């Protein structure tokens, strides 16, 4: 099986995502509430679809 090489697009996406890590760490992690369709983020009671 030929070795798969990373495309420039994937590398750029990874670098972009890594740059977001510090800011993501600063934000509260979504916490699933008792109902799966709800999440609690920074005190907001949201539907998962709100985060899309």
């Amino acid at each position: 099986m030929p070795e798969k090489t990373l495309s420039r697009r994937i590398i750029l996406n990874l670098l972009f995502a890594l740059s977001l890590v510090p800011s993501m760490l600063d934000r509260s992690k979504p916490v699933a509430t008792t109902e799966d369709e709800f999440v609690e983020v920074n005190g907001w009671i949201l539907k998962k679809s709100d985060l899309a």
Partner: protein
Amino acid sequence: MIFESYEDFQTASLTPKVAVIGSGPAGITIARKLGTAGIPVAVLEAGGREFSDESQDFYRGTTVGDPYFDLEITRLRYIGGSSNHWAGWCRVLDAHDFKPKAWAPDTGWPIERKDIEPFLPEVHDILELPEFRADVPISDDMRWVQLIKSNAVRFGEKYADELTKSRDIALVLNTSATSLDGDGSKITGAQIWSNGKQAGLLKADYFVVCTGGLENSRLLLWSNQVSNGGVVPHAEALGKYWMEHPTFEGGNAILADYDEFEVDAANEAFFSPSPAAMERLKIMNFGIRLIKTPYPGAKRLIADLACNAPDFAEWAAAKLGQHLRCAAQLYVAWEQAPRANNRIALSASYMDHTGVPRIELHWKKSELERRTILEGLRLFGQTMAEKNLGRVRIDDWLTSGEDYPTNQELAGHHHMGGTRMGTDLAKSVVDADCKVHAMGNLYVGGSSVFCTSGECNPTTTITALACRLGDHLTRKIAV
């Protein structure tokens, strides 16, 4: 008839069958029921016709535990009692408030809501209320509840003319009972203090203590002490299970469609949980007061929401442009679990001018209540999101487990419990008729007989219970 002192009253020819101590909503309602039936009543009012610092001073006391209002501020000692600073909000305890909660010890009443329902038409006349509308479920978990903001009847003002003209009711101002004398089976008299001095012993066949949700316990504790247990023979619960409605701002909401709820003239709407939701989450009852937020508050809230739910925030921002405001503050008032440790005690060293020990109020909120406010807001938030009615944000102090804020309302000035109704002699003071256990002629009126507090303001239920007690006494005396 209205007398300015006990000395004046003694010059009249009225011999009371019943002595009612206190002229607040409970005392005046009971006296009017008896007077209408032709039963002679003396109503003792410790204060005069107007507020005075001198009279209020008798209400000073101390509080141990959580921060609470000064005890001379949270109630009023003159004709009409605390109806004089009542906000006028009306709602009767729900049927489920009278039932025991398996997850909360010492809940449940010995009566049901249907026992006071026959008196609600009278209550509507007394408090000048329109008909209540039925609550509206907005989900399986939450109800949009009806709370009437009435014109706040001041009982002294409303009934002064009627009492002046009455031949069977004598309202005696500037006159208090410092203690009751009892022999373990009946009250034999009330020690009277009037216009700054002892004024003798008032005798009557029946005594009804209606001095308020703090003072009822104080009077009975002190009377029982000086009578060596002769006033409340089963006193284990006396002063205990005291309750309030703690009230705090707990969050905000962005409303998707604020026409969904009919808000009142003050831009407010009220929500409470369904009994099934309380049982599922094992929490107490609560009321969420939704107040529409002015434009700047809405803008800040939407900016915060945009960080987490950009689509909904964008939609809300568009709404903001159309309607100028579409957000709300959320205040929560909740039912305290009845706990024996929350109690009224007599100070060992702090007396009023008559020599009666002042109140030492021991009061703390419990972990169950902390969970009630947090889970209650989550429940409301989930309902709003589920029905796409809006989104709720819970305040940081709640989600991060911080202490209660100290710069807010604290509670509702609702003083409940202390002489609670029940059948267990160790956990109650009065029976289902509001008669003190084992005493033949001593009754208690007012919110001190509440077993649980529900989430609503107590005055409507106090008045209904007073009508019921007045009716009971009328029939008993007529036999």
